[in-house]
């Protein structure tokens, strides 16, 4: 069954169709939420929020963009709004040792100095929100500039510029550990 058909059935109250849409899109929504928060409980909450809002507003979806793009736009909005509140309760930065247990590397990873890796992770955490979101979506999650631009509601050129700024900031931050990265 095509996605437009599924959407029509969901709007008619068909839970099975809703479940099909959820099964198709929830893994990537959760991944994005987790990458943006670094916390499984929050990612779970935000994934749920995304779908509750999406089903509540599905009648407004016109199909101008892909459903996945629309869902990821809701996800980014939900995460950004909620994280501003959540951060008020945080006095210290995320303990990255909790988030990235030793040995969690994928098999594709080459050797990277653990100290340099941790510094990079912290530097990503410290990026301004719009740069961080752009960098995570493009370099970490593999979204295209076109997709990110649609999700964030900006021009593609803006998206490229933000990515460039984010990378430059990371390289400057890591310069003392890896001088060859200095821009």
């Amino acid at each position: 069954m095509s996605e437009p058909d599924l959407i029509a059935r969901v709007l008619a109250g068909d839970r099975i169709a809703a479940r099909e849409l959820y099964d198709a899109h929830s893994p990537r929504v959760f991944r994005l939420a987790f990458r943006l928060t670094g916390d499984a409980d929050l990612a779970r909450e935000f994934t749920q929020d995304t779908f509750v809002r999406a089903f509540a507003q599905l009648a407004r979806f016109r199909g101008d963009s892909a459903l996945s793009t629309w869902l990821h736009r809701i996800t980014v909005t939900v995460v950004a709004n909620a994280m501003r509140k959540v951060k008020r309760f945080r006095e210290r930065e995320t303990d990255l040792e909790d988030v990235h247990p030793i040995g969690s590397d994928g098999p594709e990873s080459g050797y990277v100095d653990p100290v340099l890796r941790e510094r990079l992770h912290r530097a990503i955490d410290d990026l301004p929100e719009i740069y961080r979101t752009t960098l995570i979506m493009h370099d970490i999650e593999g979204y295209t500039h076109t997709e990110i631009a649609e999700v964030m509601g900006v021009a593609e050129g803006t998206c490229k510029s933000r990515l460039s700024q984010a990378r430059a900031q990371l390289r400057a931050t890591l310069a003392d550990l890896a001088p060859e990265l200095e821009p």
Partner: protein
Amino acid sequence: MTEDRFDELMRDAAHTYRKPPQPDLEGMWKAIERDSFSASTAGGGHIGRSKARGLSLVANRWVAIAATLVAGVALGRASASLGRTPVQPTAVPSVSVASAAPAARTDSTGLAQPYEVETSRYLGQTAALLIALPSEARAGRADAQLASRASDLLGRTRLLLDSPVANNADMRNLLEDLELVLAQVARLQDGHSRTDIDLINRALEQRDVLPRLRTAVADISAD
């Protein structure tokens, strides 16, 4: 060389930076299904805006009523306690902020609109605290800050419970459950045991607090 090295680092980050765990898709679906379909499909009806809108209208009415009465209760309590103890900077300032300038502005129910904002703020702040709680507590972070925020919210919960807004059975139940949970959080001490957190989590889960709270927040913010 520089670009290559940096690209290599970013490729590594794609596998190591906040590597997502396996999500509990079934558990998340149950919560989504409950929030999105529980009442609307009994008669095969449509989901979405029509239902949400209906709930919002109901919520709006009690929110407006609640907000006005909360202000009254708060002012009453504040004036009654003036002779005994210093006024707590919990409910009174936030209500007075809301009631100061725009008190004359009213909505279609004839009640002051700023109070709706105040109640929405309360629900949003409570939701934010409870959502952040598991990870914060697990990491052993900010016990004093969490307890202080919970204590503040607890006071505001009791003001709402003391007002006729609690005549709405659903809202009363939600507020009572929030009161219980917030009281537990407010008692958290530095170095709390895992049992303390488990008790709070159990209360949250058994009473289905977060989904109900999330729905209430979404209904209000939708307007």
